[in-house]
């Protein structure tokens, strides 16, 4: 157990170091960054903001990690957030109970996943283009539900998921930590993780070994849809309204970025959900840091780009192996394929 913990720490070292460095940078540009106080029964401070605001991307990253592990990609998650937010808001506005609303929303998220999974696993359409369909149409569907307006609601039960708190932590943080933990247990305490990795590395060989590849792919996209729907609830609950136009806009890119910053390969195979979650926090730390630094907004993108490039360069296999074999020249072509 201890040795596997060590191995985990070793594997995630670059991500953890990057996170710490970003947080320190934030501290330098805005010294109040590490102040955390208890207020209104919950922790309050920039650091908590990072955890809290990072919730949607963290949730998306959980599903996205598994999708990417199967050599796929899910571009539709941003749109699914919008759809699910709209569904939740309109259900509550129409007088549905909170539990019914949550149930309905999660079901819709799953349905979106089924659609994507069907295109990828059954119709064999390339994932990026298969999910592009829902990415484009999904936002339209969300707007159809809200008729283009921001559908506001005032239901304490539902807003609890956005601004409530539990055990001193904001609800969104509790939710993503919980979902993350559950999914990690789900894939690592069962054989699911290994089977997903096998499919991502060599789909044909996996099928020949008896893995039910289509079912697995379907499940992975469904999980991604589910994670997006949870994120959708949080995003809507946060502003007490469903903004079909902007909810989750471009979040798919952040989620993919989180997965990669978390040390996962876009080519599928080996994955670490924990890494992706740390990746999501790194990205949110950068975003929050930019906001609290007080730089003019024109520079936001450049700062973000530079930081991401630096993090990725440090993590890149080439630079890492350079660091490990400081002087010895390494084989350029390691895989005899």
């Amino acid at each position, binding site marked *: 157990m201890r040795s596997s913990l060590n191995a985990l720490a070793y594997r995630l070292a670059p991500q953890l170091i990057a996170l710490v460095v970003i947080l320190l940078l934030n501290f330098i540009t*805005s010294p*109040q960054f590490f*102040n955390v106080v208890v*207020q*209104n029964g919950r922790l*309050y*401070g*920039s650091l908590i*903001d990072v955890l809290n*605001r990072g919730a949607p991307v963290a949730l998306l990253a959980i599903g996205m990690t598994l999708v990417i592990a199967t050599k796929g990609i899910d571009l539709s998650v941003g749109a699914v957030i919008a759809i699910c937010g709209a569904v939740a808001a309109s259900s509550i506005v129409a007088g549905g109970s909170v539990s019914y609303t949550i149930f309905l929303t999660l079901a819709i998220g799953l349905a979106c996943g089924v659609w994507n999974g069907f295109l990828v696993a059954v119709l064999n359409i390339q994932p990026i283009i298969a999910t592009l369909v829902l990415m484009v149409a999904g936002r339209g569907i969300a*707007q159809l539900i809200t*008729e*283009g*307006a*921001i559908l*506001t609601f005032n239901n304490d039960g539902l807003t609890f998921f956005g*601004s409530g708190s539990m055990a001193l932590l904001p609800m969104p943080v509790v939710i993503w930590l919980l979902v993350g933990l559950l999914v990690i247990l789900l894939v690592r305490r069962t054989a699911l993780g290994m089977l997903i990795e096998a499919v991502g590395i060599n789909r044909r060989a996996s099928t020949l070994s008896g893995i039910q590849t289509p079912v697995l792919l379907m499940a992975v996209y469904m999980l991604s849809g589910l994670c997006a729907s949870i994120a959708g609830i949080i*995003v809507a609950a*946060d*502003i*007490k*309204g469903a*903004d079909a*136009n*902007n*909810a989750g806009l471009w979040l798919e890119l952040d989620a993919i970025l989180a997965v990669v910053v978390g040390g996962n390969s876009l080519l599928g195979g080996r994955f670490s959900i924990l890494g992706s979650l740390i990746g999501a926090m790194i990205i949110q730390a950068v975003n*929050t840091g930019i*906001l*609290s630094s*007080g730089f*003019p*907004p*024109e520079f*936001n993108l450049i700062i973000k780009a530079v930081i991401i490039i630096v993090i990725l360069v440090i993590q890149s296999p080439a630079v890492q192996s350079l660091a490990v074999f400081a002087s010895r020249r390494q084989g350029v072509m390691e895989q005899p394929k």
Partner: protein
Amino acid sequence: GGLTVGFSQIGSESGWRAAETTVTKEQAKKRGIDLKFADAQQKQENQIKALRSFIAQGVDAILIAPVVETGWDDVLKEAKEAKIPVILLDRTIKAPDDLYLTAVTSDLVHEGKVAGDFLVKTVGDKKCNVVELQGTTGSSPAIARKKGFEEALAGHDNLKIVRSQTGDFTRTKGKEVMESFLKAENGGKDICALYAHNDDMAVGAIQAIKEAGLKPGKDILVVSIDAVPDIFKAMSEGESNATVELTPNMSGPAFDALDAYLKDKKAPPKWIQTESKLYTPADDPMKVYEEKKGQGY
């Protein structure tokens, strides 16, 4: 009757714009105009495509809400050659003014100035740190509303913009950015007023202020622009202090001008300016809210 008019809308990125679309469709219906609607999904190239395609279809007139100020000369020339009058809605462009019939817009800089003037008047001589939530970086309302606001503040050294960051015109970002402002400015105790480039960001920011344990509208004054229904709700609860109206009914005056032009060949003025009305809690916000609710915001 029997006119066919093409309407190139920017998209549906905000509740205000959805309302503008709804109102325009209603106005067209009322006048028996066949409205060809094209949504450009925030892309100029799509708007140009739509205009070209309207010209190819031979519509009688074109309405366009231009996504950006520049880049319309060529396609407007084509419209002119095809003798199709073009009317600009809610935003102006940088182009020779013989290329379009008229522009029905509010004065974006003026809106910012109205908001700024309100704040100057309300604050009086007190020292006041203002935080600003900008619109999408580079968008013309963001640039103009910032400019107008700064003009109003010029010469009043007690008012100072201490932080200014983009909130992308959205509630979520408005809330997130406001949260970071509050933390950076001593838990919000150093902030006396918030100026948001639109109401949606203000609504998000109001929640952030409340969650930080402060009272929006009292501890931190809230001024914003657009006058969407939800801000009136906030106003009725004392959480917002003022909003500047940007009417979604740009098409009404536009169709009027078009009618006059087509019937009597009477060229309208080049700029039909809509009113930038200031609303405060004194204006019976709940009544306005009820009025506006049905307009498709």
